[in-house]
């Protein structure tokens, strides 16, 4: 059935169990603090494998999360283990070479904290549906230039991906890439950067003209967005989970 104008424009299409922007922000803050003060290696591992991974799968961002883990955290973890387990061979505050096991354990702890932190941040931002994006950011109290920057950046991400894809497509279409081998694709990177940079500069100038001409920046501040709605079940679930994590870690710290 063709969606009618009124049907689509009158209501926001939300994902099931999408938490409200306030609950999302509060849960993310609690989870981040809880992770930063956590010093239980096994618990961090359990939180990542048992809670974050299933949530990233349910939120449809498992692929992005695994990419983050393998591309970014993999080399960082290797470097941390190398430095604390072998080169310094001791955790911070202890003499160099005094305890390679504890150094290794410290390296693992930092790597796991980064993994959980990354997962929490990805879960917090990447699962916001495009329909809820501006409402969420405004609900978090962002106004003025900050709102413009965040809205522009969040809208720019998909556009940048799209443009890179289009430029690569154009190179294929003009026969400038003989075949699709990995090395050939890798060689396209420098050629990708020039048109992208030129596009960014040209777009920045032309768009800022349009913003100024149509008074869009002022409109963004007063945009009649939908209220900070969300699923109450989803909100309660995420807030409960994050605050339990925070309270448990505070309790563990206090009890020593």
């Amino acid at each position, binding site marked *: 059935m*063709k969606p009618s*104008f009124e049907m689509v424009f009158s209501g926001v299409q939300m994902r099931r169990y999408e938490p409200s922007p306030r609950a999302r922000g509060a849960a993310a803050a609690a989870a981040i603090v809880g992770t930063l003060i956590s010093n239980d290696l096994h618990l961090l591992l359990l939180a990542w494998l048992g809670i974050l991974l299933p949530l990233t799968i349910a939120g449809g961002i498992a692929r992005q999360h695994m990419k983050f883990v393998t591309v970014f955290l993999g080399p960082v973890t290797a470097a941390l283990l190398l430095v604390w387990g072998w080169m310094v061979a001791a955790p911070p505050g202890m003499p160099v070479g005094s305890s390679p096991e504890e150094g290794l354990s410290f390296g693992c702890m930092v790597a796991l904290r980064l993994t959980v932190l990354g997962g929490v941040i990805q879960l917090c931002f990447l699962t916001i549906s495009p329909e809820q994006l501006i409402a969420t950011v405004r609900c978090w109290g962002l106004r003025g230039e900050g709102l413009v920057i965040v809205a522009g950046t969040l809208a720019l991400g998909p556009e940048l991906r799209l443009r890179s894809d289009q430029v690569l497509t*154009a*190179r294929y279409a003009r026969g400038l890439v003989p075949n699709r081998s990995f090395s050939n694709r890798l060689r396209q990177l420098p050629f990708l950067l*020039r*048109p992208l940079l030129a596009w960014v500069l040209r777009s920045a100038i032309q768009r800022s003209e349009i913003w100024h001409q149509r008074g869009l920046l002022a409109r963004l501040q007063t*945009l009649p967005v939908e209220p900070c709605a969300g699923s109450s079940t989803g909100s309660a679930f995420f807030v409960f989970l994050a605050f339990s994590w925070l309270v448990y870690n505070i309790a563990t710290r206090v009890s020593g």
Partner: protein
Amino acid sequence: MTAEKREGLTGEWLGNLESSRVAVLEGNNFSGRTELLRELTGLVNQGQARPQAWAAVPRLAYVGPELYNSISGLAPTVRHELQLHLVEELKYSPLAEVIDSLGISPLFGRNPFTLSGGEQACLAITCALSIKPFILAIDCALEQIAPSLKMKLLDYLGDDRFSKTSTLIADNRLREWAKSDSRTKLSVNNQRFPKRRLRFDPIDSSVDLGIQHFSPYCLRLDSLSFRYPQGPTVLRNVAADLEPGTLYFLEGRNGAGKSTLAKLLCGALRPDSGLILANGNQSHPWKQPGQVVGYHFQNPDLQLFSTSVEQEVKAGPVALGLRGQECVARCRSVMAAFGISHISSEHPLDLPFVIRKRVALAATVAMGRPWLILDEPMLGQDNASAEAIARIITQLVDSGTGVIAISHSTWLHQRFPAKIIRLEDGLLSQ
């Protein structure tokens, strides 16, 4: 026209605009239409200061040929883009009907940048109308919209419900779809604007391109299907026999999948199922892209990579193995034909849109592939240039090249013999 608008407009323009709410600017490329439209909507032209008179005019809108830059880039969905522009509640606005009839409603949940060229044009113009501008300038954007929608849009622009908006249109193909158009015509000459740094030569279709295909290259599409990940099916069991040395004219509404079909043929995309046969043998354009079919994009900026026009034109032939004198001669003749020889050392992205389009077209033609797909080859070109480009296309067809032209302009196939193929609901009919 309101009093505050009068302060901004001067001389002949004021008198002409008062008589009609929709006025058409007539003129050739480089006659100063773009500069005039930009000036009238308060934008800065090269070498000019910001027009102070416009400070008092609250709402002006310009939609240029680079449509993606007429989209704000601040909104994650089409719905937000419209909301960002609307100055009154939509259910009380005449715009609701425009949005529905231009087919924008089903696109509400999509990112504006993922729309096709025609869809982006409809969205950009609708958004510009949403701010209830006193002056709306549409510069070549209508050329990218399907004729039926163009007529609807033009009717809306002249509608009493938009009586506070004066619309100025620069459109090179206007006459072909509005033959008995009685709207005010304003002719433009470039005397009002400072001289350009560069001179732009006309296209010379009499130059021999030096491209000849002695062996015919038949293309057969057998049950070709394609859908974008997480998107609808674009092509369903498409089948066609395409003869070499023939000009085909691919028609279809905005977003019908014309560009997708072109990308499948040149190897930029891989079909989900089906075969592409070249001279009866199975061809795999996905594995060796651009070898049989060359593709000229609707948006020239996507396919310009080099630091000079000459390098840009040479890149394709060199990548496909052409060397020495043959390569130099072909590139020279192609550049001469498209009137870009004298700007061969210029950076392509420093040139105006019309010339960038020509450079991109020359770069595709210089590849010398047996088949060419030209997406909106006349975009932004005035009648004389479009005529010359059409003659170059017929020269290519005579040399054995198969050409598939994708265009909303009917001018090309009305004047030159072409076979029409139509893409509708994912199916191709010949």
